[in-house]
């Protein structure tokens, strides 16, 4: 891996940038650790108790979706192939129906804590542990990869060895994830998402300004670089056909359906309806905007280099720009277009670290969730109190961080570009489990034996394609993809097709699972899932949210039960036994002080009074004297 990043930082600039980055580390760690007070049990620690508003979860997904590698990788891609670098961020809509009306309600109403847990309930215990191995491989790969990327960047700029910088970075982010849990992750990611966009905005504005405005940028950008799509098959490492099957299909399903970090974010939202809003916002707003933020510096760099060549020398007010290694595009263009201003550049570098922290904190929390719910609780200590599991969850976070750090040693020994390491790994790991999730959720006939056999055989054969890549060629030919021995994305399609064929064959050779055993776990049994979730018949009528209510304590009430006036019942269109979302009336808290409760028979006190027990008030973190809001969920 080449060092230096194509810029020569003066010592004074290095010190300024270093102070900004370290200051940022301390600030975000303190901010995240503050939220440890909102994690009383492991449900809070991992899922924040299904309480948050869609916008809070959606905003925090911004930072989760952008890794530290994103700026470097997509700026390089943007420089080489132009605006087609946005393809991987704007091709997710095709699978949205499956997610919004299938996978999201299934896992939400089934109260699934982890994807492997779904595998046990839907199939059997063996399937669960095969899934644990694959999903942990996927997530640890991402943790190690992100840590490695930031290590490469810090080594390039400050000459700090990777094996020194990575453990220090891991120490900071491990601290707040360990103590703050999911609530800390959500709130720090919200803050870091803003940071990412602001820093990206500064870099883009400086670049466009250096070029002389938007019109200049567009006019100097080659036509091939303006297009949103790359050639269908020409470049084996980046082509439309491969990206569709490998990225839009396999990659998007993996990121949306089996990335435990994202799944936990959805499970932290107060309702399926709000989860759909978060998904909509994520696909329509966050992802396209993120594609611009991480790739635009590459597009600007290309226009700058073209204009510079046409003018016969450096542009006014800028040093000559030479990009020998395109992996350095982001750093070189930012440094030069910010006129080597170390404070602004330090802010941009802090954004790189923000991208790292916000992606890894989610993954560490997710790995810890699998460690507790799928390994520690069922296999090691099934009967223990919540306090014990909370302590174990914090240890699991520490262990996950350490494993991620250890993986950096392995990454440091790999050859090839960061992007090829990334996609080669991901496209090998995901196909079998993605297909199994899909068949399991959307085809009730799919059996446990078929799931186990297809996951094992699918994974093994996909892995073997790294040794015998030519077996992918017939499939690549069939879908008119590139046929040249380099099958980065087509490997995923191969794995998916193979897994599906094996799964279907074994399914028809084995007896189907009785419908009652998988109620609520497949798309055609969702109504049953809703009944189980509620403990009664779902109420789908859409009532009003009611704000500015007072609450009175009555300890004769059961925990998580409330009574409201007949008027409020009517406004919410609620019936006795319905699940109600009880929250502090201040919307901007995003549900930090809230809980789900059940409504009992209406009281005859004043119309704006809600009666609840002290325990319910404490569970919802409500504050005395503050008005509350109610909303019927189901």
């Amino acid at each position, binding site marked *: 891996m080449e060092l230096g990043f194509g810029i020569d930082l003066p010592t004074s600039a290095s010190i300024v940038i270093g102070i900004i980055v370290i200051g940022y580390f301390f600030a975000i760690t303190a901010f995240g650790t503050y939220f440890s007070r909102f994690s009383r049990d492991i449900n809070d620690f991992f899922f924040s108790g299904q309480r948050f508003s869609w916008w809070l979860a959606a905003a925090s997904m911004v930072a989760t979706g952008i890794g530290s590698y994103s700026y470097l990788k997509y700026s390089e891609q943007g420089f080489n192939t132009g605006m087609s670098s946005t393809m991987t961020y704007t091709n997710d809509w095709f699978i949205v129906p499956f997610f919004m009306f299938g996978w999201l309600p299934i896992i939400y109403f089934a109260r699934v804590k982890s994807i492997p847990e779904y595998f046990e309930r839907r199939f059997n215990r063996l399937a669960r542990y095969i899934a644990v191995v694959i999903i942990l491989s996927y997530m640890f790969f991402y943790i190690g990869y992100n840590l490695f990327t930031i290590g490469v960047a810090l080594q390039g700029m400050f000459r700090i060895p990777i094996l020194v910088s990575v453990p220090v970075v891991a120490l900071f982010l491990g601290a707040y994830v360990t103590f703050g849990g999911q609530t800390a992750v959500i709130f720090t990611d919200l803050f870091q998402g803003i940071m990412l966009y602001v820093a990206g905005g500064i870099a883009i504005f400086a670049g466009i300004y250096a070029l002389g405005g938007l019109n200049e940028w567009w006019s100097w950008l080659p036509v091939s670089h*303006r297009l949103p799509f790359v050639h269908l098959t020409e470049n084996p490492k980046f082509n439309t056909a491969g990206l569709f099957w490998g990225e839009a299909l396999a990659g998007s399903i993996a990121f949306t359906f089996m990335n435990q970090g994202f799944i936990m974010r959805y499970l932290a939202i107060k309702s399926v309806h709000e989860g759909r809003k978060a998904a909509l916002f994520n696909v329509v707003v966050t992802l396209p905007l993120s594609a611009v933020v991480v790739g635009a510096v590459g597009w600007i760099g290309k226009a700058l280099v073209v204009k510079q060549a046409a003018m016969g020398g450096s542009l006014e007010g800028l040093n000559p720009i030479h990009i020998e290694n395109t992996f350095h595009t982001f750093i070189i263009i930012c440094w030069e277009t910010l006129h080597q201003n170390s404070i602004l550049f330090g802010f941009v570098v802090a954004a790189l670290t923000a991208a790292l922290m916000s992606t890894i904190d989610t993954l560490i929390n997710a790995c810890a969730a699998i460690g507790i719910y799928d390994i520690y609780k069922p296999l090691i200590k099934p009967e223990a109190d919540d306090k014990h599991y909370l302590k174990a969850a914090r240890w699991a976070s520490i262990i996950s961080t350490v494993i991620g750090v250890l993986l950096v040693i392995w990454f440091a020994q790999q050859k090839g570009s960061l992007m090829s390491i990334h996609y080669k790994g991901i496209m090998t790991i995901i196909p079998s489990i993605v297909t199994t999730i899909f068949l399991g959720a959307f085809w009730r006939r799919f059996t446990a034996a078929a799931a186990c056999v297809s996951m094992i055989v699918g994974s093994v054969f996909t892995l073997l394609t790294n040794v015998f890549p030519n077996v992918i060629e017939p499939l690549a030919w069939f879908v008119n993809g590139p046929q040249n021995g380099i099958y980065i994305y087509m490997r995923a399609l191969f794995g998916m097709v193979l897994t599906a064929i094996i799964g279907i064959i074994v399914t028809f050779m084995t007896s189907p699972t009785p419908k009652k055993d998988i109620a609520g776990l497949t798309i055609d049994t969702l109504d049953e899932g809703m009944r189980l979730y509620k403990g009664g018949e779902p109420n789908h009528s859409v009532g009003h949210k009611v704000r500015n209510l007072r609450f009175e304590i009555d300890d004769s009430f059961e925990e998580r039960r409330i009574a409201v006036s007949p008027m409020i019942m009517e406004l919410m269109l609620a019936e006795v036994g319905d699940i109600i979302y009880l929250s502090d009336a201040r919307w901007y808290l995003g549900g930090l002080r809230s809980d789900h409760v059940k409504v009992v028979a209406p009281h005859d006190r004043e119309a704006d009074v809600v009666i609840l027990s002290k325990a319910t008030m404490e569970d919802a973190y409500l504050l005395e004297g503050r008005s509350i809001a109610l909303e019927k969920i189901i």
Partner: protein
Amino acid sequence: MRFGGVINLTKGATGKIVRFSSVKESDMGNNNHTNQGNGIHPLVVIPLILVVVFAFPRFLVFKLGAGNPWTSYFYQYGFGLMIFIIGIWLILKTGACDCERERDCQWFIILLAGYVFFAVMHAAWIMLALSVPYLGGI
């Protein structure tokens, strides 16, 4: 009366019972639906899909050429439409999306609008890319 909004209670509002006579039957928890199959056998559908997967990109390349930006566009949105339609068909067939439920109906419209939004956005983008002259030579 339109539902789904927010009511801010004030002192003056307490004690006043509001009647909502316009609540539709479908809003009142009527979530019964049936899984109506359309009778198309998988042994017909699967070969049909395979034929489309094989023939569609070849048709595009034959008509437009592999390097044409519209070839990539139609490849993505053609196959994307196929996946999308399978998803829509599945959620309707299984009753996961029940248009008799007010919210399901809204989300269904959003799903369709989302596909159109991305398809139109990318088409407009290609046209804009091709229409403005490039200053850097060939």
